């Protein structure tokens, strides 16, 4: 490709994509510039700038973003402890994980998990027939209870045996 700036050379961009794919495939691993530059056959001196020109953010930040994305999924979908998630997603320090997680998502890992679980237990995710079946006995008991209390004029604790 003659006359093209290096940043637009498709062959070089294709090799940079390979480095991005490798981060995606193993974001829990360490990705120093030397390792990424080797994947891309780009000099270490030029790699970070070339990556940013191609994908809009520097490789280190791209890696952090992918790690946080994966940690978020694990917080939502698994019962793993936050410590386990931090180490599984590539951090060596729980403190660093928590700080960067908050920087990127705006909330702590624990807060995100609590919010995700509250959303998951909403009845919206339960099949409609199960929801209605679960509600039915309570409703009937309450109605019968109200009738019984009204009929005998007491506020005493009813015996369940009286329920037909």
């Amino acid at each position, binding site marked *: 490709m003659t006359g*093209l700036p290096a940043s*637009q050379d*498709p*062959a*070089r*961009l*294709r090799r*940079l*994509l*390979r480095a*991005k*794919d490798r981060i*995606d*495939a193993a974001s829990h691993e360490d990705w120093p510039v030397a390792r990424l530059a080797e994947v891309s056959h780009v000099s270490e001196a030029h790699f970070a700038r070339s990556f940013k020109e*191609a*994908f809009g953010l520097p490789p280190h930040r791209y890696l952090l973003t992918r790690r946080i994305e994966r940690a978020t999924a694990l917080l939502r979908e698994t019962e793993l402890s936050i410590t386990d998630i931090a180490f599984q997603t590539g951090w060596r320090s729980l403190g660093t994980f928590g700080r960067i997680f908050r920087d990127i998502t705006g909330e702590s890992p624990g807060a995100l998990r609590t919010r995700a679980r509250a959303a998951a237990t909403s009845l919206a995710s339960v099949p409609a027939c199960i929801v209605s079946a679960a509600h039915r006995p309570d409703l009937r008991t309450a109605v019968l209870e109200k009738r019984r209390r009204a009929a005998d004029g007491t506020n005493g604790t009813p015996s369940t045996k009286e329920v037909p």
Partner: protein
Amino acid sequence: MSQGVQVAGVYVRDQDEALAFYVDKLGFGVHTDVRNGDFRWLTVQYPDQPLFQLGLFVPGPPVHDPATAQALNALLAKGAMPSLVLEVDDCRAAFERMRAKGVEFTQAPVSRYGTVDAGFRDPSGNGWKMIQARG
């Protein structure tokens, strides 16, 4: 008479290279390969899917001016083209077979959502998900 999508195309950087990849490594067959000057209409077809052709097209004249072709080639090389999905009977077996032929996998097979999926790229940078059909 049947109605529906007949051809959908992907851009590739080199049609000979793409043809070798899709036919020799993925198991497609050539459906149409005709030339008119610099223009080459090339489509391949999966043996089990006779009503659909995958076009392998190169950005460039007479369809694109040089600047547009360059922009498309850069986007293609950056993996910015739309996702593609290949359905297979056995994802792990297909992975082993294709990897032995030198296909560049971006993700080894993973069991999730009740099936198995893997990811690979064609030489140009098009990203494919390979998903096992649900039994």
